[in-house]
């Protein structure tokens, strides 16, 4: 195994300099998610503006993978339509469950494609999905949204 395939530069960058971090007001819904095997946790807030994801803010503790993937998430969904954001959620989830076999679409996932190496390690997939599960859950809790479950 080479560590570089998992810890791509992009991931380490997001880890060291996370985007959109911190909990912000106002928000429409909040979700707290935890990874019971390792204790990683994230609290994530979503603010919708009509059909648009106006803001995603978060706080949490965890490994480089969980922190970086949540940072990437904010890049991908803030300012998008809810529909687009959920499509990205689907795409990212599918990538992570591919066991590293998928060919991720950079147009859709941007920095998210760096996680293809993580998908080879089942124990880390949960880390990568932690923030995304919080996003999914939070969106589900907003009253305005009609979520089609991914």
């Amino acid at each position: 195994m080479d560590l570089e395939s998992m810890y791509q530069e992009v991931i380490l960058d997001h880890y060291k300099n996370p985007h959109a971090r911190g909990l912000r007001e106002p928000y429409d819904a909040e979700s707290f998610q935890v990874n019971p095997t390792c204790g990683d946790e994230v609290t994530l807030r979503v603010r919708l503006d009509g059909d648009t994801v106006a803001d995603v803010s978060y706080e949490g503790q965890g490994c480089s993978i969980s922190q970086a993937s949540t940072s990437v998430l904010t890049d991908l969904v803030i300012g998008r339509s809810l529909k687009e954001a959920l499509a990205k959620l689907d795409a990212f989830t599918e990538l992570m469950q591919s066991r590293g076999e998928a060919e991720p679409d950079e147009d859709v996932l941007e920095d998210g494609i760096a996680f293809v190496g993580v998908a080879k390690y089942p124990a880390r997939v949960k880390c990568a999905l932690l923030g995304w599960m919080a996003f999914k859950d939070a969106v589900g809790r907003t009253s305005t949204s009609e979520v089609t479950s991914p």
Partner: protein
Amino acid sequence: MTTMDSRPLDVTAVRADFPILSRTVRDGKPLVYLDSGATSQRPTPVLDAERRFLETSNAAVHRGAHQLAEEATDAYEEARAKIASFVGATPGEVVFTKNATEGINLVAYAMSNAATAGPEAERFSVGPGDEIVVTEMEHHANLVPWQQLCQRTGATLRWFGVTPDGRLDLSEMDQLINERTKVVAFAHQSNVLGTVNPVETLVRRAREVGALVVLDACQSVPHFAVDFAELGVDFAVFSGHKMLGPSGIGVLYGRRELLEVMPPFLTGGSMIELVRMESSTFAPPPQRFEAGVPMTSQAVGLGAAVDYLNAVGMDRVAEHEHLLAERTLDGLRSLPGVRIVGPQNTVDRGATVAFVVDGIHPHDVGQVFDSLGVAVRVGHHCAWPLHRACSIPASVRASFYLYNELSEVDALVNGVREAQRFFGVGGAA
């Protein structure tokens, strides 16, 4: 063993996979193993699969982030998926337990735990005025846990009787299963009588009154194709050791939406979500019901057993056992002084045949069998109330499986003759 679909089961090929079947007992007598209803034997592929796992990938599952732990987790979850599809379930509906007995206890304890487990668990809660319905032909494993649930909660136990020909007496079904009924628990196939019970009829009535159906599938899943989703039961249990798999592993099947809200039973590691000193929350199913380091290699072994049964083909297994049952019933009926306990023909009955021999206690019949190398079970076979209902203290039980040859039926019949001769009772020619 053959996997060609039209040919009958090739017993000789199957037997070659079971090392124990070629041993001898009691001074060189070939072993005639007719006690698979108690526990089955294991074929080499099952033994090999478990050993291979232990020699290459053994680790604690769902807990580690190293390669061995990954491999072990994959093997464990692949086994779960395989076993689930074998019984018409999804992987999330399969909970591994140590045996079927634990599975039934799990449901019964979850129901008494519901009293203090919050509003979500309400639908499992039972108390005074509620009724639990079982049958008089149950194995103790599907009777005593319900007695105990009633004792803990004040609910009332009721039961179906058994007709003289060994069938459930359904004549008062609509009174027995009524608006107060919370659970209807019964065996798919009786481990004594061989009777296959009418699941559909009982499920339909249980649905009408909103009762949960718990199916004891210990003696059905090993012997014919079973699909829990199609049967429409809420819970079902079976044991690995009765279906060519390892001891120490069983399965509780539960419909997804029930497992989602059912309170936990055993608690500890791997079944939690959040733990604080003050209180804890729990993982989704099936993990919620698998506390502690599980029976990992045993799950792998049971997966291999399912592969083996699939390769032989469950229909072929059932057909072979049908022939064995027919020959056994015919053979025993031909003997004077022998009474078959249970259905006299092969309609809705499996290849488990219990009988009594006039004038010889079952224990003594069993001893004669043993001296001839024929392994049967004697006693009440963990179904004491059923024996009382039949007014017999005990019985002799021959239970067959895919590896039994037709000639072994003849060994059984000859054994009865020998017992009659030895004890000098009726009909010894």
